[in-house]
């Protein structure tokens, strides 16, 4: 039902059952919010969104109040503006004046509010809570002093990621977000997915910043600097530079990285193809033996940590193949160093990922052989943007360049790793080919491209039909795993990505207010797949060369030694 209400002396259309905020927004009236999150039940905690409703004694939070037909609303009366301003001033009275030194300087919701409300002096002085920041984790840094206690991180971590690492603790002015027993985050059950970083309005949650660490290596003449980057950053980095339209800018990234001083530049989608070949082989072997099914993907390090902590019973089902980041890292320090006669110890290998958990993965003990780790430093998309700025590179003026051989050849199948369902699609293409010798008609799997969190599909392999599912968002993954455990559902392959939508929405991606950003990134990846000629991993000529030259065949002794890994249950407080 639609009815008319009066807002700021003008009629607007509102729908029965929606909140005041939603009616206002649809009609182009902007009211600031802090605690409100799309698709979550409003909590009404921050009171930023208050409006004046005629006949009500107090101001009303528009995010948590349903609109009704009798309402006469004023969204920007002096009373409302004074209230909003005071609320922000109150927040600032307990906030470090740290903008110049803050991760989120320039992209901070609090800063923007202070600016928009024209706060120009510290009107309310006061003692500030003295909190230390928590740098214990290799991926996530928490600075409670900058936390405005909006609770968004708490909700994401519990509702979307099913981890519930964080909660409000204590009360009143001692209220603080913390993990169980106030443990440093590295000793908590945090899976490093970084979704909390994405939703945090301030600099209270950030990734562990490492882009400066590499500068020493950059200027060390003894070091060979190698970079790899994930396909899902090539469709999102442009946002950081305000470039119009989301598109694949991998050529430009190559050029930028070389300008910064990297000697070699690769895209990890090459290794994604290798990952597919290994996984396809592993799956067929498991299927033949009739054990270890469903096979579950292990490319997402956040999911892997979740499994090690929360569902150790699922570990035997995980594929043992390393993720593309780690495969690239390994190949650089083995194959390429052999081929190009570089001492692996002289290589400084940097990986640029859409993901905070990749920082953690890079540090796993399983990812080091003979004292040499596969990856030296992992940066996020956001850090890359800053590295580029730091080096004074104007990316508008760069000409695209190709990645380095012998890992420059890619197929679009590896590109699809960035989106939920993409790994599965690529994997099925190769499995189908290996099984039947024919290429899979790509129109066969549209179900994997729906925007739903759980995407099931079936595929005929000769006489048997295999059933697969791709799931993103740990809350949905947990549901799927429960159903498998309770034998309510049967799958042969499960693809799990911790971040809702996949790595395009990873915790290291640009933080943007644009609600369509993630959809656009996904679209860009699918467009590449439509455009590219080589669409399957097994057709990637350089991958074929890798096997001929170095690994011989998928799941050979050498590939198992180099490209496969192990998992162990982890004891943390859950």
């Amino acid at each position, binding site marked *: 039902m639609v009815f008319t209400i009066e807002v700021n002396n003008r009629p607007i259309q509102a729908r029965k059952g929606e909140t005041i905020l939603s009616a206002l927004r649809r009609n182009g009236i902007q009211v600031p919010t802090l605690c409100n999150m799309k698709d979550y039940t409003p909590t009404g905690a921050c009171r930023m969104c208050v409006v004046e409703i005629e006949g009500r004694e107090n101001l009303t939070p528009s995010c948590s109040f349903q609109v009704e037909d009798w309402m006469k609303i004023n969204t920007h009366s002096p009373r409302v503006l004074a209230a909003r301003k005071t609320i922000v001033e109150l927040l600032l009275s307990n906030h470090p004046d740290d903008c110049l030194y803050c991760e989120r300087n320039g992209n901070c919701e609090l800063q923007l509010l202070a600016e928009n409300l024209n706060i120009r002096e510290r009107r309310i002085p006061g003692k500030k809570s003295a909190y230390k920041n928590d740098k214990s984790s290799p991926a996530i840094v928490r600075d409670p002093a900058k936390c405005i206690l909006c609770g968004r991180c708490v909700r994401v971590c519990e509702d979307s990621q099913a981890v519930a690492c964080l909660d409000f*603790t204590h009360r009143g002015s001692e209220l603080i977000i913390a993990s169980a*027993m106030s443990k440093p985050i590295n000793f908590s059950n945090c899976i490093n997915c970084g979704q909390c970083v994405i939703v945090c309005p301030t600099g209270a949650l950030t990734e562990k910043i490492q882009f400066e660490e590499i500068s020493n290596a950059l200027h060390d003449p003894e070091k060979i600097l190698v970079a790899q980057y994930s396909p899902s950053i090539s469709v999102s980095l442009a946002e950081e530079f305000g470039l119009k339209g989301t598109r694949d800018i991998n050529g430009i990234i190559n050029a930028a990285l070389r300008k910064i001083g990297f000697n070699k530049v690769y895209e990890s989608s090459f290794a994604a193809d290798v990952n597919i070949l290994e996984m396809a082989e592993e799956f067929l072997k498991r299927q033949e033996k009739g054990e270890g099914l469903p096979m579950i993907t292990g490319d997402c390090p956040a999911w892997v940590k979740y499994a090690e902590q929360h569902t150790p019973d699922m570990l035997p089902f995980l594929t043992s193949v390393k993720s593309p980041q780690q495969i690239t890292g390994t190949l650089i320090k083995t194959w390429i160093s052999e081929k190009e006669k570089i001492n692996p110890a002289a290589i400084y290998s940097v990986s640029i990922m859409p993901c905070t958990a990749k920082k953690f993965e890079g540090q796993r003990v399983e990812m080091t052989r003979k004292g040499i780790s596969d990856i030296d430093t992992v940066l996020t998309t956001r850090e890359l943007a800053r590295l580029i700025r730091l080096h004074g590179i104007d990316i508008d003026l760069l000409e695209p360049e190709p990645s380095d051989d012998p890992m420059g050849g890619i197929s679009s199948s590896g590109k699809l790793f960035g989106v939920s369902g993409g790994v599965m699609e690529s994997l099925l293409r190769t499995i189908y080919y290996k099984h039947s010798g024919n290429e899979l008609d790509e129109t066969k799997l549209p179900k994997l491209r729906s925007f739903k969190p759980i995407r099931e599909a079936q595929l005929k392999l000769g006489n048997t039909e295999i059933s697969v599912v791709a799931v993103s968002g740990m809350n949905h993954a947990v549901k799927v795993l429960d159903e498998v455990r309770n034998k309510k559902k049967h799958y042969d392959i499960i693809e799990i990505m911790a971040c809702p939508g996949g790595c395009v929405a990873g915790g290291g991606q640009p933080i943007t207010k644009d609600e369509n950003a993630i959809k656009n990134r996904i679209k860009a990846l699918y467009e590449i797949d439509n455009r590219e000629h080589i669409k399957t991993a097994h057709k990637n000529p350089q991958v074929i060369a890798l096997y001929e030259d170095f690994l011989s065949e998928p799941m050979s002794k050498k590939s198992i030694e180099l490209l496969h890994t192990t998992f162990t249950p982890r004891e943390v407080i859950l």
Partner: protein
Amino acid sequence: MEKLDNLLKKFPELSRDNLIPILQATQDEYGYLSEESIKRISLALKLPASKVYGLSTFYNQFRFSPPGKFHIRVCHGTTCHMNNAGLFLKEIQKILGIGDGETSRDGLFSLEVLSCIGACGQAPVISINGKFYDRLTKEKLKSVLLTYRNMEAV
């Protein structure tokens, strides 16, 4: 933890509704909530430990370190405040060197500040291990604390 397991058995339902009663019973048993207890309870109730911890820190009743041999409750209700409870509280904190919810290092004294014990007519009031001391004066306070300290010495 055996005691805790037995205690959990007494609850007909290990649901979130019973979380607070379970925590209360646990604290009655052990005197405080240890990390072990919180882990065990969250496991039994299938709740994230962070939620159990977050809840326990919200309420005054729960403490996370063992109480002292002598548990002092100080009333800081309105009437007691009007009768200088605030000053006495500071005095106690000074003498024992502990704050609200803390236990002295020798494990002898622990402190809890309440708002109104319910004897405003006799303000200011404190209780030590359940025994009340009313109409407190500075001298009375000092001698009471001394008595308890000496009690330990013998």
